[in-house]
Structures are given as structure tokens and as C-alpha cells.
């Protein structure tokens, strides 16, 4: 994507000569746009690796024991989880789109701490390298599941310490990104860009930044305890030494439930940007959407116990956690209603980003509402250990965060690359992906309801049909991904030249050339008049 010719009037950030040449001009760059592009490419490569592990699991499940042994199956689902969660969805939207667009959206030239931003990127690469090292080192790859539950993670013979240390380094990267973004939003808004004129994507990144800062350190110290347990025999989670494995689960989920919102909040932000642009309407209930992001971030930090409803907690604690889980659904519902109200009577233009946004609303609603089923105490007892959870989780993570990432990739493609993607191929890709997705994961809801336990590599014959449908779905989904990314890669090099504002968007990124110049704005913009996000055209 580098050798592109810019127009005569300006130099894009791709061509900007820096202090370094070649690959170093990227790795040493502090330009938030270059860092964003590098993150995007890295994320998508890891996504491809994680998807391959997922396909392998699905393949093994239609012929249990023939393709993967039980032990290898454990390793593959662990690797799938670690890569997808820690290397793809958690960093996901903030590091890729947040880096590229946050400064532009608030009218700034860069983030508050550009060199710290580069350090985050290096830490991310280091963490990823350490995780891949844990797969290839002498000994077995991690086999505990991505949650590293004690006591298994303390006693397992696999390379747990290396993988856990990689996650620790990634956590550092995530904390610094959150800190950077929150400071950026506080300090670098353009003149006139008041809090309630911020684009909604910025609001969600802001809320996400706080969650990253306040939740990740708890995970970090928990991971340190695992490493200390393995090397020094410190037994905080070992009942033989007075410790308690349930405490591990508490500490782990104090981080990892808020992490769900690290993945989802910015996804909701992208959807809130896309829907008004393609329905040619002002966003309905701007303030409610903005504040619901803060509400989700704060209430979402108090619901971790619903991951442990069957682990052994007092009944009082279970009732309270279940209740707060229901409460946290309210601000999510506020967002869904506002999106639908924005679409209502709008002049809807069906293009690929909107298709992803619409399917996001559907899939996220299914994921969210099934979340309430398992958040209620009685059904949780039946469903907690089953595929129902796996289906719910993938509807929220892939149908939610994943579809939003694809929405963002298409929506901002003209701006980041300066080229248009092929609309017809993109739509075909979306359709194939959507069909494959539902075949793959909806069958898991049914399997789970019938009682198929999660994490098992084998099962009684009555579950075969469900598994077969799911595996066929995984192939369709893979075909969809190949069409989508084939189209995007080809378009990045051969697509039509993109104008500055192909979608008639009103936010600031569309007011500057595609791809943006190195300094984003020649003169810092001054925001005037009505609320920025809801300003009518013309």
C-alpha cells in the first residue's frame, strides 16, 4: 500500500519522508496512523491464525479422535482462545481504528503521548512473540483453556509460564494504550469540540480506556501469582497450602468480564458512527448513547461473578451478581433502541458497512439476550457447562465485536487506503459470512440446550447432526472470510481512487483528504454551532 501516488496538493502519511528508511520508517514511526495500520495488519494475521485453529477444532469434532488426540484438542482450543482473545479482540478496535481515527475525530494531530503509543505497539509485538514462543518451545503448548484456571494452570506440565508472561506483556501494552487515549480525549480536543460534540466512537473509546486502565492491572497481578506458584511454590490458589482456587476465578473475572466491554464498547461506537451516515439521519438519542457507554463501563465492572455461578459462592452473592447482570443489559438495550430509532424513516443506503452494522444489531441482540438466559440463576445451572455458553460467547464476540471490526474495515477503507473496495464482492462476502456464522454458532445453542458439554473432544452419537451442521457452517464462514479479505487486499492495490468523503460523512475524518496527510489537518479545525455529531447537512 506504500507506493501510491498522492495528488499534487499534498503528501499523504504513506509518503511522508521520516528519519528512517524502509521497514524502520514504520516500526520507528510515532505517527498514530502508521501505528494503526501496523496494528491492523498484525491483528488480522493473528485472526487468521486463530481462525485456522478454530477450523481445525470444528473438523476434529465431526470425527472425534481421528484427526486430533484428546490432548492435542485441548491444546488447539487453548491456542484458539489465547490468540483470539488476547491478540485479536481485546486489543482489536482501540489499537486499530482507535489509533488511526481517535486523533482525527477530535481534531488533533496525534495522540497525547506519541512515543508511549509506539512503546505500546512494541510491547504488543513482544507479547505476541512470547505467546507464539510458548507454542513452539520444547514441551507442550498451553492446554488449560484461555482462562488459565488454577490449580490446573499451576500444575500442568505445559509451557504455561511463557504464555502467561506473554499475556502479562500484552496487558502492559493495553494499559498504556488506554492511558494514552483517555489523556488524548481530555487534552487534545480541537477548539469548540465540547464533550457532547464528540463523535460517539470517541465516547466509547474513552470509556474503554478507563476499563483498560482499571481492570488490566488485576489480571496482571493474577498472572504473576500463577508464575510465582509454578516457580516458587507460592500457593495462594492451592488448598493444600491454605489457598483457594475460587479466589483465582474471582481475580481473573474481575478483569476478564470488564474485558468483554473492552471488546464490545468500541464496537458499539463504530456502529453508532455508521448507522446515521447510511440512514442520512441524525443519530437518535446522542446523549443517551454516550452516557450508556459510561454506564456499561461502570456497571459492567461489577458483574464478574456471573461467570462463577456454578463455582461455589454464597446464595446471596449469586443473587446479587445475577441482578447486576440484568441491570447491565439496560444500557446495552438503550443503544439498540437508539440505533433502530435512527434507522426509522431514514433514507437508508444499503452498502456493505451498513449490512455489517445491521447484522451486528441482530447478532448482538441474540448474543445479549441469551446472556440474560444464562445470567439467570436457574437456567445457568443447566446451561453453564454446555455449548450454549460457547454459542452465546461467539454471538457476542464474533457477531458483535467481529462484525463491527468488519464494518469498520469497510467503512474506513477509503480513508485509510485511499481506494474504494469492490461493493459487489464485499456484499457477496458479507452474505456468505452471515450464513456461515449462523450455521456454525446457532447450532451450538441447540447442542448446548440438548446438553453437549463444552471443551469435550468426544460426544455420544445423538449430538452428531448438530456438530456436522456446525462444522459445515465453519467452512462456509471460512469461504466468506476469504472472499471478504481477498476483496479488501485486491482493492487496497487496484481499487478505484477514493474521494475525500465517499459516504457524505459529517465527522472530521471525512473532511480531510484520503489517505490523510501526515499532520492530519493543515490548520486545526474549530468546531462551531450545533452539536457536532447531529449537525444536519447543508
Amino acid at each position, binding site marked *: 500500500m506504500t507506493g501510491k501516488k498522492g495528488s499534487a496538493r499534498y503528501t499523504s502519511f504513506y509518503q511522508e519522508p521520516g528519519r528512517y528508511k524502509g521497514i524502520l520508517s514504520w516500526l520507528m514511526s510515532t505517527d498514530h496512523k502508521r501505528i494503526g495500520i501496523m496494528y491492523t495488519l498484525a491483528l488480522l494475521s493473528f485472526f487468521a491464525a486463530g481462525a485456522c485453529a478454530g477450523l481445525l477444532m470444528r473438523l476434529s469434532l465431526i470425527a472425534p479422535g481421528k484427526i486430533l488426540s484428546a490432548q492435542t484438542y485441548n491444546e488447539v482450543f487453548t491456542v484458539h482462545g489465547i490468540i483470539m482473545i488476547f491478540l485479536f479482540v481485546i486489543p482489536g478496535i482501540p489499537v486499530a481504528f482507535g489509533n488511526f481515527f481517535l486523533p482525527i475525530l477530535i481534531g488533533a494531530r496525534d495522540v497525547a503521548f506519541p512515543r508511549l503509543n509506539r512503546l505500546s505497539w512494541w510491547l504488543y509485538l513482544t507479547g505476541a512473540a512470547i505467546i507464539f514462543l510458548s507454542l513452539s518451545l520444547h514441551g507442550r503448548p498451553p492446554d488449560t483453556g484461555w482462562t488459565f484456571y488454577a490449580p490446573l494452570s499451576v500444575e500442568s506440565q505445559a509451557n504455561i509460564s511463557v504464555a502467561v508472561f506473554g499475556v502479562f506483556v500484552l496487558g502492559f501494552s493495553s494499559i498504556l494504550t488506554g492511558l494514552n487515549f483517555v489523556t488524548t480525549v481530555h487534552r487534545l480536543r480541537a477548539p469548540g469540540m465540547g464533550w457532547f460534540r464528540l463523535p460517539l466512537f470517541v465516547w466509547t473509546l474513552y470509556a474503554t480506556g478507563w476499563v483498560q486502565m482499571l481492570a488490566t492491572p488485576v489480571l496482571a497481578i493474577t498472572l504473576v501469582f500463577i508464575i510465582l506458584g509454578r516457580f516458587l511454590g507460592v*500457593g495462594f490458589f492451592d488448598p493444600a497450602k491454605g489457598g483457594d482456587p475460587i479466589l483465582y476465578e474471582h481475580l481473573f473475572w474481575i478483569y476478564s468480564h470488564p474485558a468483554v466491554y473492552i471488546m464490545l464498547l468500541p464496537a458499539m461506537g463504530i456502529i453508532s458512527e455508521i448507522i446515521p451516515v447510511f440512514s442520512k439521519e441524525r443519530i437518535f438519542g446522542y446523549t443517551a448513547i454516550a452516557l450508556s457507554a459510561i454506564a456499561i463501563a461502570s456497571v459492567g465492572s461489577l458483574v464478574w461473578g456471573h461467570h462463577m455461578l456454578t463455582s461455589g459462592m454464597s446464595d446471596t452473592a449469586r443473587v446479587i451478581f445475577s441482578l447486576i447482570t440484568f441491570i447491565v443489559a439496560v444500557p446495552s438495550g438503550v443503544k439498540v433502541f437508539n440505533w433502530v430509532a435512527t434507522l426509522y424513516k431514514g433514507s437508508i443506503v444499503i452498502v456493505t458497512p451498513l449490512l455489517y452494522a445491521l447484522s451486528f444489531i441482530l447478532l448482538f441482540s441474540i448474543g445479549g439476550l441469551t446472556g440474560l438466559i444464562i445470567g439467570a440463576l436457574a437456567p445457568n445451572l443447566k446451561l453453564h457447562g454446555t455449548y450454549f455458553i460457547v454459542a452465546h460467547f461467539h454471538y457476542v464476540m464474533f457477531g458483535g465485536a467481529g462484525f463491527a471490526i468488519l464494518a469498520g474495515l469497510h467503512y474506513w477503507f477509503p480513508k485509510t487506503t485511499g481506494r474504494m473496495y469492490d461493493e459487489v464482492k464485499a456484499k457477496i462476502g458479507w452474505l456468505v459470512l452471515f450464513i456461515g456464522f449462523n450455521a456454525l454458532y446457532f447450532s451450538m445453542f441447540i447442542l448446548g440446550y440438548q446438553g453437549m458439554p463444552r471443551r469435550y473432544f468426544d460426544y455420544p452419537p445423538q449430538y452428531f447432526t448438530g456438530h456436522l451442521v456446525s462444522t459445515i457452517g465453519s467452512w462456509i464462514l471460512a469461504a466468506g472470510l476469504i472472499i471478504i479479505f481477498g476483496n479488501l487486499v485486491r482493492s487496497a492495490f487496484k481499487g478505484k481512487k477514493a474521494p475525500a468523503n465517499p459516504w457524505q460523512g459529517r465527522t472530521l475524518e471525512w473532511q480531510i483528504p484520503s489517505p490523510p496527510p501526515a499532520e492530519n489537518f493543515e490548520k486545526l479545525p474549530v468546531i462551531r454551532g450545533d452539536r457536532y455529531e447531529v449537525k444536519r447537512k447543508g
Partner: protein
Amino acid sequence: MGVDYEGKKIGMWMFLFTELLFFGGMFLLYSVFRYRFPLDFHAAAAHENVWLGSVNTFILLTSSFAIALAISAMRKGRSRLSASLQLATIGMGIAFLCIKSVEWATKIQLGLYPNSPVLLQKGPGEVLFFGLYYVMTGIHGLHVLIGICVIAFMVVLTRRKKITRQNPIKLENTGLYWHFVDIVWIYLFPLFYLIT
């Protein structure tokens, strides 16, 4: 573009929030285990040397005072005095670590360290107490060590006139970090030494 003083301050405070939560995880474990095994904790704390702990508390508090003076001196433009006070802070930080290592060495000689045969003979609460003791003072000590390195860096920057009266933000943020490390110790000291 000039230095964004406010922005850097905000950034540092937020970093300290994250540190607070990092230590928070350990304090959470401490509270749970002490609630479960109050008598064991009580008995185990008798092995701590209150005298050395008090001296260390005194040293660390004084070092915090020294770095606060270093910042005041810098604001008044007396950068040489500031550099000396920073060196004094480093000196006290090193003294703290020396005393800490003496304490650790004494305990290890007695066979009191995680997973040691002596320790595993004792009650579960005592095993946990010493586990927490080593982890929490160890990670705190690591923070002191990092602080010493950062202040040493600040001394160099002060001498090279990179930190000045007009631009003292790096030194001020270092000061904030050092105070944070100090405050953590103020909680560690009673929780491990004074609960007998």
C-alpha cells in the same frame, strides 16, 4: 508544540491508578486470607523484626521528604541543590533495600520461605502469611528499585539542564511515583509487622 504540563500530570496520575489496582489485587488476597486465618496471621507476624521495619519506614518516609524538597528546589531554580537532594533520595532507597534484604536473608536462614519444609509444617494461615509477605514486599521492593533507577536518570537530566525551573514535569512525576511507593509501604508495614 510546547510541553503539555496538565496532560503529563493526568497521564501520571492515571498510571498511579493502575499501580493502585495492581497492588489492590494483593491487598484483596491479604484481606481474604487474614479474615480466614486471623490467629495464624497473628502468630506468623511474631517472626517479623519490628525494629528493622520501623527503621525502614523512617528511611522511606524521609526519602519521600527529600524528593519533595528536590522538587521545591527545582521550582525555585536551584538545580544543583535539587540534584543533591535527588541523590540523597537514591541513597535512602538503597538503604531501604539493604535492610529489606537483611530481613529476607534472616528469614530464609530460618527456613521460612515459600514451599520450604519448615514452613509447610506450620498452619495454612502462616504459610499464606509468608507467601504474601515475600510477594508483596518483593514486588514493592521491585518498585523501589525501579524508582531508584528513574531518579538516577533524573539526576542526569537535571545536570544536563533537561529538567529546569520552567520544565520540571519529569521530576515532578518521578516524585509522584516515589510517594506512591512510599504510601504502599505505609500500608505494608502495619499489615505485616504490627498485627502481633
